[in-house]
């Protein structure tokens, strides 16, 4: 399988529900340390809704389904991360357009639009200790892999590695946004829950491509 069709996207969304349920407490903990502790709730709500949408949807195009997922997430989880992830799925899905399946090129376009959407909506950029710090390197890795003609699984393995590296790097950054910003240099050395969510998102895609 070198491309994700609508069923593959459905199983990614279902997998993400499972992942967020499993990671709920960890996300709460990370967000408690430098935020308000609701990240685990937001993400489980977001992907429960997305998985339900995937399950019920008669959409045949993967891009359309990803857009729909964004829309239900916006409703279900209107926290910072919820709305940013929703924006990401909507913009990314739009970038995939009418493609029947998502190959490495479409996937790079998806994640590029995803992360650009988040930066625009969040008025932020690389280096501010947010989800952008894991997703932006991942999008770049996907673009490079696509340009190098790598397979979908290889491309996503690269992207997951880049996301994890970005998440690691973000630990040493200082939060500039939201509730974390008030902790200033106390945030340095701590993991950002949003950046970790970025890793989980990419890994779910990678797991689907790998398995």
């Amino acid at each position, binding site marked *: 399988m070198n491309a994700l069709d609508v069923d593959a996207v459905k199983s990614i969304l279902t997998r993400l529900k499972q992942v967020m349920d499993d990671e709920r407490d960890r996300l709460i903990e990370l967000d408690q340390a430098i935020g308000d502790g609701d990240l685990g709730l937001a993400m489980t709500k977001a992907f429960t809704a997305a998985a339900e949408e995937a399950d019920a949807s008669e959409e045949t195009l993967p891009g359309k389904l990803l857009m729909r997922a964004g829309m239900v997430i916006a409703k279900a989880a209107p926290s910072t991360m919820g709305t940013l992830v929703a924006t990401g799925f909507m913009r990314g899905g739009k970038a995939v357009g009418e493609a029947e399946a998502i190959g490495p090129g479409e996937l790079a376009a998806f994640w590029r639009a995803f992360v650009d959407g988040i930066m625009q909506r969040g008025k932020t950029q690389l280096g501010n200790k947010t989800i952008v710090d894991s997703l932006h390197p991942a999008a770049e890795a996907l673009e490079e892999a696509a340009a190098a003609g790598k397979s979908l699984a290889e491309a996503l393995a690269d992207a997951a590695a880049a996301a994890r590296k970005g998440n690691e790097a973000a630990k040493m950054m200082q939060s500039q946004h939201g509730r974390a910003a*008030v902790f200033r240099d106390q945030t340095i050395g701590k993991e950002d829950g949003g950046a970790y969510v970025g890793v989980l998102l990419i890994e779910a895609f990678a797991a689907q491509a790998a398995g």
Partner: protein
Amino acid sequence: MVKKFLNDPKNFVVEMLEGIIAAHPRQLAYVADDVHCIVKAGERQPNKVAIATGGGSGHLPLFLGYVGEGLLDGCAVGDVFQSPSAEQMLEVTKAIDAGAGVLYIYGNYSGDIINFDMAAEMADMEGIRVESVIAADDVASAPKGEEGKRRGVAGIFYVYKCAGAMAAEGGTLEEVKRIAEKACANVRTMGVALTPCIVPEVGTPGFEIGEDEMEIGMGIHGERGIRRGPLRTADEIIDEIMPQIVDDLPFVQGDEVSVLVNSLGATPKEELYILYRRVSQILGEKGIRVFNTYVGEFATSMEMAGASVSLFRLDDELKRLLCKPAHTPFFVQPQL
């Protein structure tokens, strides 16, 4: 152990909203078949600028408690400590717009900003003029010079009050926005928390405060403050926070202010007045005149014990607007 009156914690917000609507049917209603989309009951006043707010639950009377005569027209209500969705904000916006545009007034929290921005874009596509003013009055949450990073807390009451009065007077969207911004520029708040609070769906406190500790500057969602230390006396606490409020604007001799002493939830009125006693002594010493005082629950964190003090600097215009009557299920004021 959660000592709360609850049914299924999952239904906390919806049941609370159903209770509010049931209790105040002549004053409040909801739109879009969604009890989170609260609007003032009754006819729209044609060409009045409408004001909307929104934010997470758990802060009553914030936010929906300020929907009513002389105040706000609508409020999108989120889950506990969570922003409502952009779509809910849009529904409220559409329902309250009376042709003169809608002003969003809300607190400086990234979730709310991101959703209100999204809602404003969507409203714009529907041909509704929307402006936004963000309250950021908590001096404990970022130093002077970085006011844009500050949280919005109880001081938003003054922003609602003055903007609401201006809209009731028939001000244009620009005028109402100017007043809201002016009110924001003239209000400063700082709080102290003694205990945490419990998000019903989580069931345990999101943070701890030691048995004999307090946290100066804690936010209304339990965001860490400036300093944690042993619980001090009421007077010592006020002596610590007042200079940080006064010096920030700064409020100076000859200024006239309105003072708001706010309970974060569990702290009883008795203690608020013990706090206010010292506030009034300090203001007296500094030659800052007190025009009037609000003491009670204006912005809470459910059952958190703690309090905040807000100072609002008045000029003739803000004073005139502050004095106007207002009437909601949670706040009533006659003409002062």
